[in-house]
């Protein structure tokens, strides 16, 4: 049975096309179009250097669609071009689909001109969606009149957009019966007109006559780049730096600040959960102690610890999404790239790294949208060097108790030192493990408003992913901590007592701290609890020492303790986030590695504190040597004596 389209085609005298061939420049999305029309999964890629035959697929309609490797076969400069030219010569009856990128109309039409004049062809403009988005305009009807050929404008990735073209092509299949004459006539006519302009009846598909390229130019307007006031400021070095700093500060404060909306939300959450806990305690007043503890500390506490991340996470994510969608992040990345490239980072990576000052887990999750996956891995690895806000109460407690006069200096050392260490390690890694590629190539889109609907959708997705992927791990961790700190090794419920498993393990590992001069088991137990949650350390210390922390450390030991605490294993929630982003093995490596780094730092700090005179002298000497080496610079290749520049011994002879 003939389809309506085929009947219409036959009655109009449109000649059938059993063979369809796609031609065009490589950037025109030919293969994407081929895949869309044929349902194939050919890989788009670089044909250059590979001699391939034309890819082809047979459709259900019986037609065969070809994706020709060359361009228009005009100049046989490469094997691909020769294949295309041979094909065009051998198939005068085929219908040629000239795929032209809408960004490249002039060049595409010029290239297709000869083919349009000598074969049956239709023109398809691809990347139409992007073209429109950038502000371009195409008058399809006017273009058809100018080219005297059928014109389509599609987004090759959108099935709906390709449908009209597909239907047009499929309608041209040789009808099963009766239309055979039309099919045969087409082939004959094609053979006759192989080298001459194609003549036929009054076809809606392929009119006669040469395409008028000059008129075609008038049928479309290329998008023009827009530069507004905001762009003038953002592309100015000072403006860009100020805007970037302001944005980071704003995002940071909104997510982690004491009086921010996120903090308010967290307080609300806390309040709700304490009410819940109180109600549970009252309801379970007759239950055994372990059950009360399980429900209140374990289950309710666990649920709270998962949800407590959401206010900060969602706020930071909101900022990131808004920055990326609006085009601001692209501008910041562009302007700051010169600076960050030397460190082996970029503006986007820095944003996530800096967020680590708020919360390591949230910062790790914020690297998700980084395009450069290698840089993402590196950034996540660097995060443990940046002190999260949960560590601050411990710093303050210990510093206040032991050497309060040194507080500003020590805090500055810890915070800035962390960032400096991260930058140095990043620079080192980029020369070895994570070698930088020249791949910083990105489009800077025009500034645009971000839709509220899009933001809300993104936030909901982020929340859902967090709860599902990371939430489970946090719950498990909280449950484990609850179990270890409330039960003895004989699995009897002891509450938070000294013979709980956690305390006994802490007593066991205290030997690790002897080289720091720390022998008190209460310190090692507190630090162990810090692996579960850094906030727990201050509380555990206070509880075990009865409030007098100053008696616990000498200044040297306190210094060692701070060094260890600043660097050692991030909390398990952070490790869960790290695991989500860069994998289980790397997360385990981070956990173990940072513990070792912390120990080494603690040992070194203790040694420095005890022998501070010698160490300072050695460090000063080291600086002098390093400065001398840097000043020396490179040795001249010609004479081996001078330092390049004005070589007196050019070509081995004295000038």
């Amino acid at each position: 049975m003939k389809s309506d389209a085929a009947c219409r085609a036959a009655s109009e005298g449109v000649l059938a096309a059993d063979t369809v061939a796609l031609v065009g420049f490589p950037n025109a999305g030919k293969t994407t179009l081929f895949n869309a029309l044929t349902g194939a999964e050919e890989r788009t890629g670089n044909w250059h250097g590979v001699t391939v035959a034309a890819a082809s697929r047979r459709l259900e309609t019986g037609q065969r669609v070809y994706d020709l490797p060359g361009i228009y076969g005009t100049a046989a400069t490469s094997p691909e071009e020769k294949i295309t030219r041979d094909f065009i010569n051998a198939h005068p009856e085929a219908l040629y689909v000239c795929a032209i990128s809408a960004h490249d109309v002039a060049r595409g039409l010029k290239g297709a001109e000869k083919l349009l004049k000598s074969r049956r062809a239709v023109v398809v403009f691809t990347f139409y969606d992007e073209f429109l988005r950038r502000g371009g305009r195409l008058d399809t009807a006017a273009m058809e009149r100018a080219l005297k050929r059928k014109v389509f404008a599609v987004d090759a990735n959108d099935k709906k957009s390709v449908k009209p073209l597909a239907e047009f092509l499929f309608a041209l299949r040789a009808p099963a019966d009766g239309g055979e004459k039309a099919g045969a006539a087409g082939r004959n006519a094609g053979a006759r007109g192989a080298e001459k302009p194609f003549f036929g009846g009054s076809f809606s598909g392929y009119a006669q006559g040469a395409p008028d390229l000059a008129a075609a130019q008038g049928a479309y307007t290329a998008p023009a780049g827009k530069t507004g006031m905001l762009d003038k400021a953002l592309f100015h070095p000072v403006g860009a730096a100020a805007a970037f700093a302001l944005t980071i500060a704003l995002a940071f404060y909104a997510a982690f600040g004491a009086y921010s909306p996120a903090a308010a939300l967290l307080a609300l959450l806390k309040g709700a959960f304490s009410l819940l806990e109180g109600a549970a305690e009252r309801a379970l007043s007759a239950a055994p102690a372990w059950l009360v503890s399980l429900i209140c500390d374990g289950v309710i506490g666990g649920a709270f610890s998962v949800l407590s991340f959401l206010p900060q996470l969602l706020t930071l994510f909101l900022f990131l999404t808004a920055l990326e969608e609006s085009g601001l992040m692209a501008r910041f990345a562009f302007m700051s790239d010169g600076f960050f490239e030397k460190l082996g980072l970029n503006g986007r990576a820095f944003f996530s790294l800096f967020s680590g000052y708020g919360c390591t887990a949230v910062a790790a999750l914020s690297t998700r949208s980084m395009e450069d996956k290698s840089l993402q891995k590196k950034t996540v690895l660097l995060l443990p060097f940046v002190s999260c806000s949960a560590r601050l109460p411990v710093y303050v407690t210990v510093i206040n108790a032991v050497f309060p006069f040194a507080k500003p200096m020590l805090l500055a050392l810890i915070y800035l030192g962390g960032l400096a260490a991260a930058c140095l390690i990043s620079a080192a890694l980029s020369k070895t493990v994570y070698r930088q590629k020249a791949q910083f190539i990105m489009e800077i889109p025009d500034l645009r408003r971000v839709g509220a609907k899009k933001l809300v959708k993104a936030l909901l997705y982020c929340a859902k992913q967090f709860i599902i992927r990371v939430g489970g791990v946090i719950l498990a961790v909280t449950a484990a901590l609850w179990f270890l700190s409330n039960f003895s090794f004989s699995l009897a419920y002891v509450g938070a007592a000294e013979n709980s498993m956690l305390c006994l393990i802490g007593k066991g590992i205290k030997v690790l701290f002897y080289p720091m001069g720390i022998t008190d088991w209460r310190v090692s137990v507190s630090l162990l609890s810090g692996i579960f949650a850094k906030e727990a350390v201050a509380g555990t210390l206070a509880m075990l020492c009865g409030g007098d922390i100053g008696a616990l450390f000498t200044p040297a030991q306190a210094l060692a303790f701070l060094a260890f605490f600043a660097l050692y294993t991030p909390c398990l929630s952070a490790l869960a986030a790290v695991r989500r982003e860069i994998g289980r093995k790397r997360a385990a490596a981070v956990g173990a590695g940072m513990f070792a780094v912390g120990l080494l730092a603690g040992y070194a700090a203790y040694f420095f504190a005890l022998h501070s005179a010698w160490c300072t002298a050695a460090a000063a000497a080291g600086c002098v040597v390093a400065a001398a080496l840097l000043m020396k610079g490179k040795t001249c290749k010609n004479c081996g004596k001078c330092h390049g520049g004005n070589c007196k011994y050019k070509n081995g002879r004295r000038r």
Partner: protein
Amino acid sequence: MKLSEANIGDTLRIVAVGGDVRARLESMGICAGNTVRVERKAPLNGAILVRVGGAAVAMRKDAARFVEAEVEI
């Protein structure tokens, strides 16, 4: 000349694109025959911003070195 050597305001016609960044560059519209205009250069010897086909594309010097182009008056 290489695209990395061009000055701000130059309009160039691309002659050839090489290197392993070729596929990425071509997908952004940086391919032989196209016209680009160098719009900006980032500070501190950073990336350059070119306008091609209505889009603004940024790339580092080491990617721009793979693009051969000639100046159009």
